[in-house]
């Protein structure tokens, strides 16, 4: 019964959060955004007290049900493990094992230090929700470097759960370890009734957390994820989920364990950029009707400061909170957010305007961010923030280069921050070139994205270290 309730709740959460990430319509976040906000580490980073306190209380009362219901990577492992268990003779395939303390607490200490010192790349790498988000985002829209990390994560986690159930959760997962501090002394826990137990070990062989030791009749509650498989499968009614507040937790001690190796993760990032040249105007080329001119892909300028979304306070604040879950990347309808390859901000998103610009009516990333790296904004507030300033490179501007009129940047500036002024100040009739009114520019990138100069735009945006509001 308990097991069925757990499975139903897990299914609801899992389907909802999967739909949130894969949503092609871009509107589901309004109803499903809470599944991301309920995630523990993003809640800590965004200081979402409600979620933090609720999760701690629930864990103190019921044990690590969070890991079996809310955590999508946990549920994903259960699904893999369940499929693995359907193979012939593999139903009771687990064995009791000892807690791999040195690894578990080393990883956790490193993680803790990483959070404190803002090494978000490491945090993002092992944090379960982010890992899951990356996998889904890579399915929807694979982007380097995320897709490689996601693929490796998927393979490693899938192999571990295929063979040994919840190894990742009880060895590497920092959220699992953190919650284990509370679940040790949870009010309700699965307790073995030694009088009824016939030592058949079905529960032990069914425990995907490998935390039941029937020889000593002990359960390691730090690793128990409250899945209730043991209770529902005990033929002798010897296991009960019952009030055990204050009872000393019994830690299992037996059976050596095989430790898993996550393997090394190496990345190659190298892309050659073919810089094309503009078509030369040749003399006497017969006019041929129809067809399309080739459009060269845009190439990013080096920005003096990175661009982070409207709603982030500053570049530093953004990168110290972001868990690289990729939810904003997957939801951005304008292809502005991309995962970084920079080792310091590995996989954390940055903004760039080659494939789109940050449109004035869109605030989706600020609505979905569960970690507080991007704080909620209204459309009206959005244009009062300045995240960057545009700058013009005259040599690239087609007005100068091709001698034609343009003004596409000024035409699309939502804050009228671009003035079109005569190319030659002493000749008011000369072609008009853009000039930036720095005080009005908000850094949205409409000008950069829509600049006809390719591959390098003649106008580009540099980020502001600290965003300012009018």
């Amino acid at each position, binding site marked *: 019964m308990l097991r069925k309730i757990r499975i139903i709740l897990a299914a609801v959460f899992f389907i909802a959060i999967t739909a949130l990430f894969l949503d092609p319509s871009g509107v589901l976040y309004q109803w499903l955004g809470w599944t991301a906000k309920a995630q523990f580490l993003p809640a800590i980073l965004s200081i979402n007290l409600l979620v933090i306190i609720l999760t701690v209380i629930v864990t103190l009362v019921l044990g690590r049900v969070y890991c079996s219901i809310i955590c999508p990577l946990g549920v994903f492992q259960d699904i893999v493990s369940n499929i693995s268990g359907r193979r012939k003779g593999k139903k009771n395939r687990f064995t009791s094992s000892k807690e791999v303390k040195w690894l578990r607490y080393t990883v956790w200490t490193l993680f803790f230090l990483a959070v404190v010192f803002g090494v978000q790349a490491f945090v993002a790498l092992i944090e379960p929700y982010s890992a899951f988000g990356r996998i889904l985002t890579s399915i929807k829209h694979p982007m380097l470097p995320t897709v490689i990390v996601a693929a490796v994560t998927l393979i490693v986690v899938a192999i571990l759960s295929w063979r040994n159930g919840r190894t990742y959760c009880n060895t590497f997962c920092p959220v699992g370890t953190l919650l284990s501090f509370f679940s040790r002394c949870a009010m309700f826990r699965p307790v073995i009734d030694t009088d009824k137990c016939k030592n058949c070990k079905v529960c032990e062989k069914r425990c995907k957390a490998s935390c039941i030791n029937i020889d000593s009749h002990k359960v390691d509650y730090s690793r128990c994820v409250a899945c209730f498989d043991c209770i529902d499968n005990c033929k002798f009614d010897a296991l009960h989920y019952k009030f055990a507040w204050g009872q000393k937790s019994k830690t299992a001690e037996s059976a050596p364990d095989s430790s898993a190796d996550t393997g090394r993760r190496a990345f190659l990032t190298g892309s050659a950029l073919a810089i094309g040249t503009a*078509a030369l105007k040749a003399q*006497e*080329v*017969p*006019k*041929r*009707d*129809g*067809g*399309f*001119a*080739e*459009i060269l892909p845009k190439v990013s300028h080096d920005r003096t400061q990175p661009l982070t979304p409207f709603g982030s306070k500053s570049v530093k604040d953004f990168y110290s909170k972001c868990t690289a879950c990729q939810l904003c990347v997957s939801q951005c309808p304008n292809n502005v957010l991309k995962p970084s390859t920079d080792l310091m901000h590995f996989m954390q998103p940055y903004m760039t305007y080659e494939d*789109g610009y940050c*449109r*004035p*009516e869109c605030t989706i990333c600020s609505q979905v961010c569960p970690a507080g790296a991007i704080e909620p904004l209204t459309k009206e507030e959005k244009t009062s923030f300045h995240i960057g300033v545009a700058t013009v490179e005259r040599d690239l501007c*087609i007005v100068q280069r*091709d001698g*034609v*009129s*343009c*003004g*596409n940047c000024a*035409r*699309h500036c939502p804050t009228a921050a671009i003035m079109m002024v005569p190319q030659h100040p002493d000749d008011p009739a000369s072609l008009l070139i853009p000039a930036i009114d720095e005080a009005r520019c908000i850094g949205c990138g409409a000008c950069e994205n*829509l600049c*006809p100069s390719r591959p390098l735009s003649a106008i580009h945006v540099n980020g502001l270290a600290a965003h300012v509001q009018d």
Partner: protein
Amino acid sequence: MEKKDISRRDFIKDVGLGSVALGAVAAGCAPKSSKKAGGEQTGEMEKRLNPATGDKVSLLGYGCMRWRMKRDENGRQVIDQDNVNELVDYAMAHGVNYYDTSPAYLQGQSELAAGIALSRYPRKDYYIATKLSNFGVFSRQGTIDMYNRSFEQLRTDYFDYYLLHAIGRGGIPAFNERYVDNDIMSFLLAEREAGRIRQLGFSFHGMQNDFDDLMKLYDKYHWDFVQIEMNYMDWKHADPRQNTNAAYLYEELDKRDIPITVMEPLLGGRLARVPENVANLMKTRNPDVSVASWAFRFVGSHPRVLTALSGMTNMSDLEDNVKTFSGFKPMNEEELEFMDQLAGLIAEYPMINCNNCQYCMPCPYGVDIPGIFLHYNAIVTEGKMPISQEQKEYRKLRKNYLVSYSKAIESLRQADHCAGCQQCIEHCPQSIDIPTELHRIDAYVEKLKQNTL
């Protein structure tokens, strides 16, 4: 008693209809029962006599400007030659003997494709019309090279009909730049003398005074024929800022006994897909003929018209047109009046006068100019224009506009990428102020996106 009466009346009615249908089949104007029946028309293709040459020209001419393109193995757009051969075979089999092409059409591939398809038939069985499309090439040698290349491409040693391509706009100065200052006009007159050009004419786009100026040159050049844009919209409702009413052009040519070839009888397909109220009137009058057939019959009903050119892309277009022009029945006065009424109704829809001729393309900055206009016109024609948030169904219309826009035009080729460089303007035979129209559509789409309409 009453029941019996009705049934008897119904019976008589059925029999009557049946015999009418049978009679119609016998008379060779069977209503089209299905697409497949296209080849079953029984009347002969209508032919018009060119008195100067004795040519019997099919009233339906093949415009070789809108054939289907496909991607070759290198990703380049090329004409689907098998498709062209198939279409030309059908056209030849049904009496279509006038083929109009140009060195500029279909990215410069039209002449060759027409040449390949037509050279499979005896040269005397078809008439070739091609043009001196010396846009951007004004030098004497460059222009003559273009002229000579057309012979190779079309695999012939004479042109039946040769046109100065799209003159009128820019007036006499533009005409002089292309044909007089470089002494090409005398070259062409000599070629006509030598028989390599059997008939010399021009295709016209422009204002009335531009046309009058060209007519004044008649004594000097003796235009053998003139190609004009003519259809029931342009007859009396041509955009006065950009074009001349076809009725005026027709009368001017008619009184000089100059044969007329007609382009844009269907306005690039716009008159095949008309607003619902107009289509309704057509179908009420005759449910069995296509919307497009009304446009073709209108043009064909004018006796000075030698041929009406249709750029038929699909076999179904060709079949339908062959049906219209086989056993052709000209419109009577009352029907012509009806067409004028329809034109008045269509004129109320604020469409952009783009006929998808592709002369503006390729835009150097990659914008899909005709695609954007076609999409816009389709929305106008369907009456699906979102106008304001107060409008009923605004949300649905807004979504429809934005979704269909992004489906029709890839994002990098949409109107927001128009730099306003103005290079397209001179190429548009309709004199559309393309950048202004694109910027207008872009500003409108921007309002839709931001929901500030």
